[in-house]
């Protein structure tokens, strides 16, 4: 009798774990991503000198509470701006972007959220090359 109860409890716990958090993510790569502050035409048509600032990453999320109340901003530009603000850079090279969608207690749709993450090498554009 005890063993049967224990088996049922284990199955319930497993089911609860399965349905209490669900999610998935996908990722991709970009070569160059620059903020809106730099003139794209000038950046591309004139040769520039830049300084590598190192790896940078940023993340932005939007939450959806009870599938009715949206909070936050999950755009790529927001995540990139965060990465650039922290590193003091103007653009990112070799960018990996990831978008995710998660649901907490999905049976009751308590909260779901989608996030965009960016990771790349931050650069500071210094001057037009002679």
């Amino acid at each position, binding site marked *: 009798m005890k063993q049967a109860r224990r088996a049922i409890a284990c199955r319930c716990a497993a089911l609860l774990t399965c349905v209490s958090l669900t999610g998935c993510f996908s990722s991709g790569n*970009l*070569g160059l*991503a620059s903020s*809106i502050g730099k003139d794209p035409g000038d*950046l591309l048509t004139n040769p520039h000198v830049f300084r590598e600032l190192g790896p940078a990453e940023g993340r932005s999320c939007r939450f959806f509470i009870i599938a009715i109340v949206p909070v936050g901003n999950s755009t790529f*530009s927001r995540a990139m701006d965060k990465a650039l603000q922290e590193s003091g850079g103007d*653009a990112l090279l070799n960018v990996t972007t990831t*978008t995710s969608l998660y649901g907490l207690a999905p049976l009751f*749709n308590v909260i779901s959220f989608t996030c965009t993450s960016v990771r790349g090498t931050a650069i500071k554009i210094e001057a037009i090359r002679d």
Partner: protein
Amino acid sequence: MRAFTSALVLFGITGCVSTGQVGILSRSGADPAALITQANPYEEVGLTSGRSCRHFALNLIPFGDAALSTAVDEALTAVDGDALINVVVSSSLFGFIPYYNLYAFTCTSVKGTAIRFVVDANPEAVIP
């Protein structure tokens, strides 16, 4: 009856969209730094847009790909472009019959001016 219909309409679909702007987005390539260190003359191909979506059925079965790179690829492939400038990016999250969590999807969209690099003008120009 009217209240029931209103509630159905209100909760039949819920969603939100947020947007932002980016200067340049280029595909992944061997040497993206060359886009900055070299002069890369280009021609404007025109306005283009791309969209990628991930679907989530019953909050258990995911399918699709909502990565930004997929949306950029779709936009550039449509016009045979090399990069996007002055890009508007948006991210959306929608739920159908959210009370039962029947179906949700998140999409990433890009809209911008597609450009194509002019290789003849600069033989060293890098096409990513």
